[in-house]
């Protein structure tokens, strides 16, 4: 009987119910996104704490701040060979993990993905000003991170399609024009394993072959430019290219400058160690190698992993706005629900009077209002779920936590209507005109 009452009530004043549902589902959609973002960050944080809390991280940076110094360094004939050997020896050791994570945009010819995958999308969604032409080819500039081999192990990369990069994938030999790359989870419906993209890698045209698609929420830590700690950056919307080793002498000036850029980047890395001893071991080794290969000064910056920001970089800026929008939308929709349900009670006062006349109790009617709100919330969640799937295409999962929360949130919206109903008398209901 109560269920029937709820169905009747929802069925009545259909337009308002539909409007209310639209409002509810939009609010739920935003709220779920916010909750998803926070929960995901918290979960990753937990995962990270579990995996990395015992470890210590130190950043290694080159000291070539002024161009003069850099120029002098490259002047010498064998500097490239020296830095290559230095890098090779420093990278290979079991006592620590020396790796590079470099966020470096990538030019892709005839890019197929959506706007969100473009570099600078967060800051300027409309303009892709960094798109450029090289020769006769037009490149779109997309988000990309270059990683050395140790990164995959350090951050536990897994693929959902294809395979991870192998050791030889990080080596570029003379005349080679193809390199394998990984793609973030968001690319899974855009490109497939085996697809070949025409790309530009530090001004060098290369064919990029998709070797694998990473799992959802694969992330790496990036230190922020200012001192606000480290970010966990999700790679779902990024391409992941290998930080290459060049196994050959540069045949021309262009290639030399390409290799120089590459190896200079490689001197800037992060070292992760299990304990202090390993760190001093690394430090000694680096000093030895510096002398051995006559390399300039480096800085080692202690980088304790204590302040990993909760939110991924992509969402961080917009998060507080999104949160405010979500709260406002939720409040408004609960208010609307309260108003619509109250109106319905006035509209249906005769029906309420009649059912009470023949034995329905007030608490049962209150319950029917609560139930109606819950049913609306459930339908709203259903619609929001579908919209979520359509809009985010799997990037944001619809959370059961939100489903439960939303049902809880709509209940206060019943206070007004229940109060309204409590004032109704049977008498005024049954004698009133309909």
């Amino acid at each position, binding site marked *: 009987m109560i269920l029937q009452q709820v169905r009747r009530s929802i069925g009545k004043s259909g337009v308002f119910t539909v409007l209310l549902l639209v409002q509810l589902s939009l609010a739920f959609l935003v709220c779920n996104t916010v909750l998803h973002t926070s929960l995901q960050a918290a979960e990753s944080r937990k995962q990270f704490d579990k995996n990395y809390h015992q470890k210590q991280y130190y950043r290694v940076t080159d000291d070539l701040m002024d161009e003069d110094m850099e120029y002098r360094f490259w002047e010498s004939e064998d500097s490239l060979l020296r830095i290559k050997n230095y890098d090779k020896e420093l990278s290979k050791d079991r006592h620590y993990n020396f790796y590079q994570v470099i966020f470096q945009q990538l030019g892709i010819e005839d890019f197929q993905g959506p706007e969100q995958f473009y570099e600078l999308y967060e800051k300027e969604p409309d303009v892709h000003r960094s798109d450029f032409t090289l020769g006769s080819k037009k490149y779109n500039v997309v988000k990309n991170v270059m990683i050395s081999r140790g990164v995959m192990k350090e951050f536990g990369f897994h693929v959902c399609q294809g395979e991870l990069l192998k050791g030889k994938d990080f080596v570029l030999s003379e005349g080679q024009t193809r390199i394998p790359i990984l793609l973030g989870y968001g690319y899974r419906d855009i490109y497939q394993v085996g697809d070949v993209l025409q790309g530009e890698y530090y001004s060098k045209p290369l064919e990029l072959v998709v070797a694998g698609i990473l799992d959802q929420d694969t992330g790496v830590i990036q230190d922020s430019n200012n001192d606000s700690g480290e970010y966990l950056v999700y790679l779902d919307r990024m391409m992941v290219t290998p930080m290459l080793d060049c196994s050959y002498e540069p045949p021309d000036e262009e290639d030399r400058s390409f290799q120089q850029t590459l190896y200079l980047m490689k001197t800037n890395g992060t070292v992760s160690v299990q304990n202090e001893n390993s760190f001093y071991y690394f430090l000694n080794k680096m000093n030895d190698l510096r002398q051995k290969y006559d390399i300039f000064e480096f800085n080692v910056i202690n980088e304790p992993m204590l302040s990993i920001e909760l939110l991924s970089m992509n969402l961080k800026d917009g998060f507080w706005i999104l949160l405010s929008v979500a709260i406002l939308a939720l409040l408004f929709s609960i208010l609307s629900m309260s108003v619509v349900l109250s109106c319905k009670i006035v509209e249906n006062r*005769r029906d309420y009077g009649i059912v009470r*006349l*023949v*034995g*329905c109790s*007030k608490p049962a009617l209150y319950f029917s209002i609560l139930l109606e709100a819950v049913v609306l919330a459930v339908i709203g969640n259903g619609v929001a779920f579908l919209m979520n799937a359509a809009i985010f295409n799997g990037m944001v999962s619809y959370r059961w936590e939100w489903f439960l929360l939303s049902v809880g949130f709509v209940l206060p919206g019943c206070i007004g209507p229940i109060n309204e109903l409590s004032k109704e008398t*049977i008498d005024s209901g*049954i004698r009133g005109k309909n």
Partner: protein
Amino acid sequence: MVQIKLEGISKTYGKNQAAVHALKNVTLQIEKGESVAVMGRSGSGKSTLLNVLGGLTTIDHGRYYFDGEQLKTTEKEMCRFRNRKIGFIVQNYALLNDKTIYENVELPLRFTKQGRKRRMEKVGSILEEVGLLDKKDRLTSEISGGECQRTAIARALVNDASVILADEPTGALDETTEKTIMQLFGRLNREGKTVVIVTHDPDIASLQDRIIRIRDGEVI
């Protein structure tokens, strides 16, 4: 045997200056199987009295005995009382307009624990009694006033109420229909139901065993 006994009942609507004393210290008795007409001028408190008798409203002072027991005023008890003991009929019928005759009559049974089959039997036999069985699937928004009133009466009877309270049940009906409805009440009364009818019509009142007159909330 006394079925209904009111002792010093008062009912006031509103507060302070706006207060309306609809019933003042009303004391009366109604025998089981009696038919009673309640008469009085407009605003004298007839409907309020009927509401009190039907358990539709709470009382401010006084005591209400039904079948010798004082009526409990908890929501649960009042609901039970309205559902089991009383059949209440009003001038505008108080039917759910988007439901069929059958569904309207079945309504009180849905607040009991009776099964579907049993409900069907009961509704069927009561509709037979008021002569609406062949129209049971018609929506009540599409039937005549007399049929509406018969539906309302069927609903009042379906849960074996022993008291029928009717507030101007024929006020909106033409004379012939009024006559059949009043005959129906007469028959129910002869079958043993207690009938209380609020009416302005002296002819209807004269058909009843007794007339209770009210003036300004007082029984005279």
